[in-house]
């Protein structure tokens, strides 16, 4: 069985006189390089041009709010449990009277931190979340000067409260995905 159609039998045959002059091979090589000079360049000139990103590209995370602007996250910790890189930490707190406009349920995440250097952008937190609170977005994480700056807290993760500044995740939160997340026989819901 052959694994590839590019196999080539190695031989130790003596070079012919023309081959041993090397010049034909050198000119052939120079022909190859000069052809490349006139080829289309593959470089993407980054700040001016950007690579096209898929609609469901897994970039920086966002913590969603619901329709009334309340945080969806209830600090259940399933995302932190699902995270293979152990990038997520959180501290839960109880909602007190008067905070009903801020948090949807009685428990919320007082501290929610993702270490962007540890994160491998696998999206398992998004799959694990039962409250549809955490999503990955197309935004690419910015460069920072220190390691500490890469630990993103709620100030960077929670989406803005203004309706028109909300981040659209409908491309990744399709009906199919929602249905899959609710399947009882799948491992993630047992």
């Amino acid at each position, binding site marked *: 069985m052959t694994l590839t159609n590019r196999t080539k039998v190695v031989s130790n045959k003596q070079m012919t006189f023309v081959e041993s002059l090397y010049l034909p091979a*050198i000119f052939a090589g120079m022909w190859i*390089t000069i052809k490349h*000079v006139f*080829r*289309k*360049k*593959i*470089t993407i*000139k980054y700040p001016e041009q950007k690579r096209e990103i898929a609609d469901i590209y897994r970039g920086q995370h966002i913590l969603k709010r619901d329709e009334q602007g309340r945080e969806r996250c209830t600090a259940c910790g399933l995302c932190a449990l699902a995270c293979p890189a152990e990038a997520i930490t959180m501290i839960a707190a109880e909602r007190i009277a008067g905070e009903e406009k801020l948090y949807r349920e009685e428990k919320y995440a007082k501290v929610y931190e993702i270490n962007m250097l540890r994160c491998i952008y696998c999206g398992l937190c998004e799959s694990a979340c039962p409250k549809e609170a955490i999503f990955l977005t197309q935004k690419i994480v910015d460069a920072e000067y220190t390691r500490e700056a890469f630990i993103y807290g709620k100030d960077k993760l929670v989406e803005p409260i203004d309706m028109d500044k909300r981040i659209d995740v409908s491309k990744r939160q399709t009906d199919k995905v929602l249905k899959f997340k609710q399947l009882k026989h799948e491992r993630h819901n047992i």
Partner: protein
Amino acid sequence: MIIYLIYKITLIVIILLMSLLIAMYATLVERKFAGFIQDRYGPDRAGPWGILQPVCDGVKLFFKEEYMPNTADKFLYILGPCLTMMVALLTSAVIPWGGTITIAGYNFPLQVASSSIDILYIFAVVSMGVYGIMIGGWASNNKFALLGAVRASSQMISYELAMALSIASVIMMTGTLSLQETVNQQHTIWNVVYQPLAFLIFFICALAETNRAPFDLPECEAELVGGYHTEYSAMKLGFYLFSEYINMFISSAVISTIFFGGYNMPFISNLGLSENIVTLLGTAFLFVKIFAFILLFMWVRWTLPRFRYDQLMKLGWKILFPLALVNLIITGIVMLLK
């Protein structure tokens, strides 16, 4: 008399500045060309098409920390790059950059020093170039630098022989050591037509003499870190790197002058232009040839892999040297039979 003195000094300054400018932009062209060959754009951030890139590189080299190993021989360590740079710039003195310009009855030849031993002078000065590398490599007190220096010197010795012999056959043919005379004799037919083999040998040796790929064993990043300039930093390193480009420019000029008719432009005398314009056009044409050769140097560099050390020696002593001798003998026989 005073006019000639002023004229010579201006010419010297112009040629010096020109060599530096061309070497400066050769670095950019090299990086661009390398980029194109590798399907990239090369530097294009500093100014349009990256034309300010050499300036940025120069500024960077000037402001880098001046580091000197404390075991280095101080005097020789500094002498190395200075010598390399000086020798690289010296060669341009005897190259005829054009014919003679006549203004108000005065004749101004576009050559700094015209003598009857131009070619000998070039060989003498070029072989001095290796001293800069040797001294620098030795004075660094570093194993890699020393190895690079040793390689450079043995490479120079092996290739200088073949180079001189290939030129010897041209000298036999033209019967002169003066470059001006050599150029004048190529008015109708270039020397490369009579001596293609000598040209090939000379070109290969020129690659070796300028320490450029595929013969860049003295630097040889893959084996010797940086070769002879491993311990150098800031502008001393800049001098070494820069002199390589000046050498390339001068080598191209020498090749164009000896083998490709120098400032002779075919059919120019049929156009009926005035003498001075013909001279200037000839100079422009010489520069076209020089730039073509510089590009050829770069093209070769970004195509061929580096030679192994024993292959380099074998090529120099067992192939190029006998080939140059055979060429010399053939030239002699043909001249006898004529």
